[in-house]
């Protein structure tokens, strides 16, 4: 399984992004929105019980992620039409503000090493990827354990928080380069 310090694999996947006719699908790739952080989370199967709760929870905090220059991407191995059907079917998913990606060929879950050996679907994994495409946080739980989105926001904050001010300068240290 890929972990801290590894580069997040390249991907280019179809995604369900909207309920609006003609605008339902987009292709989402790792090269979209350069300079941004990514929060990529996986769930095993569409139309199951734990998934909509935590997907909706990511949706509710989407603004918090945006304010932290992070793009949220949800992924499962279902196809994009199943994602769309689930969005139409479930009230909590109708207004989801982030794309639901379809890793139908299992390339991404295989590259990450999060394909469940028995079920053949994605494990419940969450990655935080920095703007240089390096994995900075990963958590994986067994198939039916839900996630805490607050914790993901907290970790993202901690990863992004650095004492960058020259005020933090101590006698004898070199200063920040202003040029």
């Amino acid at each position: 399984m890929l972990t801290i310090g590894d580069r997040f694999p390249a991907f280019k996947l179809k995604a369900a992004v909207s309920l609006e006719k003609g605008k339902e699908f987009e292709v989402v790739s790792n090269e979209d929105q350069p300079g941004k952080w990514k929060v990529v989370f996986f769930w095993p199967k569409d139309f199951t019980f734990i998934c909509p709760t935590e997907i909706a929870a990511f949706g509710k905090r989407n603004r918090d992620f945006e304010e932290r220059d992070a793009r949220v991407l949800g992924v499962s191995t279902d196809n994009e039409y199943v994602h769309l059907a689930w969005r139409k079917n479930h009230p909590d998913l109708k207004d989801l503000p982030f794309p639901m990606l379809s890793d139908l060929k299992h390339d991404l879950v295989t590259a990450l090493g999060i394909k469940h050996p028995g079920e053949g679907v994605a494990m419940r994994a969450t990655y935080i990827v920095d703007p240089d495409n390096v994995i900075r946080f990963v958590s994986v739980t067994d198939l039916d354990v839900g996630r805490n989105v607050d914790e993901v926001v907290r970790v993202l904050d901690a990863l992004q928080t650095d004492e960058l001010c020259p005020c933090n300068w101590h006698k004898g240290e070199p200063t920040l380069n202003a040029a």
Partner: protein
Amino acid sequence: MSAIDLLAAEIVEPARDIKLNLQSVLGAGGSLTAEQRWGVAIACAVAARNVRLQVALIADARNEVGPAVVEDAVAAAAIMGMNNVYYRFRHHIEKPSYADRPARLRMNRLVKPAASKVDFELYALAASAVIGCDWCMRSHERVVVEGGLTEEQVHDAIRIAATINGAAIALEVA
């Protein structure tokens, strides 16, 4: 008449020195570029918490500099409002046990200025002078001088900071 001239006209007679200084420090002709002059003035008006000065300075600045300068000035003042308190505490208490703790405060905008990095540091220095943090002033002064600004420019920025703070007070006179 510029917005700042209109506002300066409201300054009461006993504070006339401040009014005259305001006209002279904000005029062109000193060592600072237009960006530096307006950026410093706006950052100091924000740091001095005087909304009317802030609004007038931003209105006049828009004729001479781009929106990135105004944004940087506001960002520098807001972040220094936080950092001056935090680091002033660390510096005054001088216990390594506090200095060794991470601040865990976001200050990412400091390293992502919309315009010039060294000008951003100058705004931060001027705001620190208004708010009053010795070590913050010392460290930001080092950074701007090492970044290529002259002491003459730093001095002119501090003259603006002092005048803006004086004007902020004079405008509150009942």
